[in-house]
């Protein structure tokens, strides 16, 4: 009846997951009760869960990502503290638990923290920056989000029902094959990623289509903001790379479920095939994450320096260059598998070539600051810290791209320090910069600057104090994923890293306080103008938060930085451009399709993991019925009446006129 699932699947003998699981369970129950009792459920269902508005979906993605970031960070704290005490000692986490933690840490951070935040920011900002009302496929967008949430849910369920993979964040066979991993851990991994991978693929298709086909009148490619360009590059990579991931994981699933021999030791399987395939996805994946972050930094550098981005065309070429070259470097993840000198050399050189195009970007950001009037608000601090940190991380990356150097450093803590250096310094700093930058646009009030700066400094110090000692430990020959160790020379560096984690934890706390304080003080932090940072791209042309239809009139784009041009014209003439005749606007209707599909996907995934075949069948029927029901719909749009459009846009124009008058007085006085 319940396949492999028994009451013993719950880890009764392990207090840590039990207590953590119980605490989360109680918190969720309390939250749900509060929502129901206060009568917020219909609002949540109508305005968020079934919403197909790209802004709402973007916000939900970011929220999911931030919660998972916290979960992944707790894993990190456990790993670092375990290594701190496990010198000549077993520590407090037995291998069974420790191995799950580092596997879950990597999986969660990449797939369910970094990806959702990055995709969320693209969701929120790309249509606004393109000057349009929505993405190409709004319901697909919602489905993509909810499938990602399914994946995150399954990974977290594994904490208290069964176990997670103990194979590392990439389940290398033969370790991940049935003889060596007989439990459900790898199956949790497989189904979480197969389901969320479909969601990511939908996002990729949606955004490539949106950026190529859905742009405001006059928004030619070479007038798009840099963030839209990097989003395009990133989504092209998603479309090309995620099918490889899905296919590879399906092959592994076939090995595990149906006795196939793709990657097994016996029957002619080739584990090296898995390693090649997973990294042909895995290397582009790092650029899927970092390219949009590059886009965010480009926006921030330009906005807070009060200048256009330097070398726009070079930046476009560099982004697309990274997009292409990232496909030609995957073998540098396994130089030590003995591929031979020619192969290693070619892939080593290809990897260093990425440093050229990335170097171009770094220089262009520097020259964007040159001649600027730099305002040091939180997004700019993150961006500046990114340049310094990323240059150092890029440097250690090029070292690892030289095969003989990699022969001494591969799979060591030096490698761990390197990729955290680029992922935290690049992607995480980019996410934080993006969240602070677009927060007032999304919610209509800014985040508290003081707490934002406190979070910034703690996180920055925490990063350096954690990971630079790990570089040293790696140079001393310490490899990754050690549950305990006996080499005395490594110990001081591991202890230093714990101090760094403490700083990072304070940083996390500051972020949470920042959010709470900002919500409490939202009246003072209110953004009445819609343009809190003196912005340059189109999202700042509408009000904060933007209406469902984004723009009353689609902007008529006449050059790069269209909003900056509009603003300058208004300042010169002391008048806003005249409004046209307001018309009703058709917007896509809410749909429960995404949520229902994800619900049934969760059922399918859980059934597959525990071999509960009737549950899988029921889930498949439900998911298919949902799609048919959606396909049968008669109406998929509703109209916002012209009067409503006029009212909302009228308010926006009043705020803008006030701003214009205020600025005129200021410059008059000066």
């Amino acid at each position, binding site marked *: 009846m319940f396949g492999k699932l028994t009451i013993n699947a719950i880890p009764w003998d392990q207090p840590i997951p039990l207590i953590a699981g119980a605490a989360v369970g109680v918190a969720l129950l309390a939250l749900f009760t509060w929502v129901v009792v206060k009568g917020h459920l219909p609002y949540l269902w109508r305005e968020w869960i079934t919403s197909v508005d790209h802004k709402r979906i973007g916000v939900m993605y970011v929220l999911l990502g931030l919660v998972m970031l916290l979960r992944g960070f707790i894993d990190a704290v456990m790993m670092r503290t375990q290594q701190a005490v496990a010198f000549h000692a*077993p520590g407090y986490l037995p291998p069974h638990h420790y191995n799950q933690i580092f596997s879950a840490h990597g999986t969660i951070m990449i797939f369910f923290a970094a990806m959702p935040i990055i995709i969320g920011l693209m969701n929120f900002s790309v249509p606004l920056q393109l000057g349009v009302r929505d993405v190409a496929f709004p319901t697909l967008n919602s489905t993509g989000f909810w499938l990602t949430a399914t994946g995150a849910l399954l990974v977290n369920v594994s904490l208290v029902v069964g176990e997670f993979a103990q194979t590392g964040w990439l389940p290398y066979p033969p370790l991940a094959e049935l003889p*060596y991993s007989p439990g459900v851990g790898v199956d949790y991994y497989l189904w979480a990623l197969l389901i969320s991978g479909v969601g990511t693929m939908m996002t990729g298709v949606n955004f490539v289509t949106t950026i190529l086909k859905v742009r405001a009148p006059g928004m030619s490619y070479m007038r798009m903001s840099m963030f839209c360009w990097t989003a395009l590059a990133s989504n092209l990579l998603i479309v090309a790379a995620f099918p490889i991931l899905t296919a590879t994981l399906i092959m592994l699933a076939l090995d595990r479920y149906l006795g196939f021999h793709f990657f097994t*030791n*016996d029957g002619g399987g080739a584990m090296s095939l898995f390693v090649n395939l997973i990294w042909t996805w895995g290397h582009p994946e790092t650029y899927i994450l970092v390219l949009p972050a590059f886009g965010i930094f480009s926006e921030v550098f330009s906005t807070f320096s009060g200048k256009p981005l330097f070398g726009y065309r070079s930046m476009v070429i560099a982004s697309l260059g990274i997009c292409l070259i990232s496909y030609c470097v995957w073998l540098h993840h396994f130089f030590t598998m003995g591929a031979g000198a020619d192969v290693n050399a070619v892939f080593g050189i290809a990897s*260093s070539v990425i440093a*050229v195009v990335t170097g171009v970007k770094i220089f262009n950001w520097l020259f964007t600051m040159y001649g600027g009037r730099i305002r040091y608000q939180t997004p700019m601090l993150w961006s500046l810290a990114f*340049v310094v940190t990323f240059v150092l991380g890029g440097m250690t990356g090029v070292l690892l791209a030289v*095969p003989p150097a990699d022969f*001494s450093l591969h799979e060591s803590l030096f490698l761990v320090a390197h990729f955290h250096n680029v992922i935290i310094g690049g992607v995480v700093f980019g996410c934080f910069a993006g969240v602070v930058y677009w927060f007032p646009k999304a919610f209509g009030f800014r985040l508290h600057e003081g707490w934002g700066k406190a979070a910034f400094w703690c996180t920055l110090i925490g990063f350096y104090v954690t990971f630079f000692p790990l570089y040293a430990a790696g140079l001393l020959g310490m490899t990754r994923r050690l549950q305990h160790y006996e080499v005395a020379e490594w110990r001081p560096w591991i202890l230093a890293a714990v101090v760094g984690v403490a700083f990072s934890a304070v940083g996390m706390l500051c972020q949470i306080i920042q959010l709470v304080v900002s919500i409490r003080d939202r009246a003072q932090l209110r953004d009445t103008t819609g343009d809190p940072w003196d912005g340059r791209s189109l999202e700042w042309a509408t009000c904060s938060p933007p209406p469902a239809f984004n723009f009353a009139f689609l902007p008529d784009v006449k050059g790069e930085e269209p909003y900056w041009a509009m603003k300058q014209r208004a300042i010169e003439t002391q008048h806003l451009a005249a409004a046209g005749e307001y018309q009703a606007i058709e917007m896509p209707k809410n749909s429960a399709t995404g949520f229902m599909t994800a619900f049934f996907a969760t059922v399918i995934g859980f059934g597959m993991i525990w071999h509960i075949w009737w549950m899988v069948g029921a889930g498949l029927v439900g998911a298919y019925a949902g799609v048919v029901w959606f396909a049968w719909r008669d109406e998929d749009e509703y109209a916002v009446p012209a009067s409503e459009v006029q009212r909302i846009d009228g308010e926006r124009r009043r705020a803008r006129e006030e701003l214009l008058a205020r600025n005129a007085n200021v410059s008059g006085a000066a």
Partner: protein
Amino acid sequence: MTRPRSSIDAPLWAKGRTLSFAIAAVSGGVLDPRGPIAADNAQILVNALAIMLAIVVPTLIATFVFAWWFRASNKKAIYRPDWAYSGRLELIVWGIPLLVILFLSGVTWIGAHDLDPARPLAGETKPVEIQVVSLDWKWLFIYPEEGVASVNEVALPTDRPAHFSLTSATVMNSFFVPQLGSMIATMNGMVTQLNLKADRPGDYYGLSAQFSGRGFSDMHFVLRALAPESFAQWMADARKSKAPLDEGAYLTLARAQTTSPTQFYGSVDQTLFEKIAARRLTSEAGPVSPPSQAME
């Protein structure tokens, strides 16, 4: 079904801990090389770092100078709100990274060929042949020419290079002695090649660099670099061991899902390594089914 596995962890890592006291572990790391390969790896690391610092340091300085000078409160800084393109600067922006990477590519190409793990070391002395098998979770070393074998301890003479042929009886591992240089993967059904040499006598820490499961953290060994006469003595001592390494002894060793104390075998089935590598002799029924909770 899966849960009881955790219960067998406790004895395992407790065992690993007591064992490790016997092995005095010292690791000077990759920047304290004790052999030519490690020295060259370290040298290439330092060279590549120096080449990149030549561009990274000025970039970082420029970052801080620009960021400081062009702060909004600095009234002396000239504001150029429309300056966004300069052909000459674009040339520098593309040119400098390109030149650095071109140079570094040369280093990479030459280094990858000179230091290819499969490439025999220069010199006319015949290398010591050593066959390596990674097991769950220990290392088996076979000296086919001398006819001895050892577990978790391997010896090299300091006057001759060593040629390693490596495979894995189970999952992938990576053979790594930080102070001697280049690591190489060990894979089931495949044989990888590695050439190393130790310059100075000493005990060097060796470990698996590739995560391989539950007992991975105990999967370390000692590499003893010995003066020629001490090496001969080590061989003679190992040969005194009565235990032969035949198929039966190998399977017993391979199926024990733990690390192992240092052991020696005085005689060896000469075809054993070939049989393991060709999968004609396999230990895997996978890990034995987990014992019940009774262990506690």
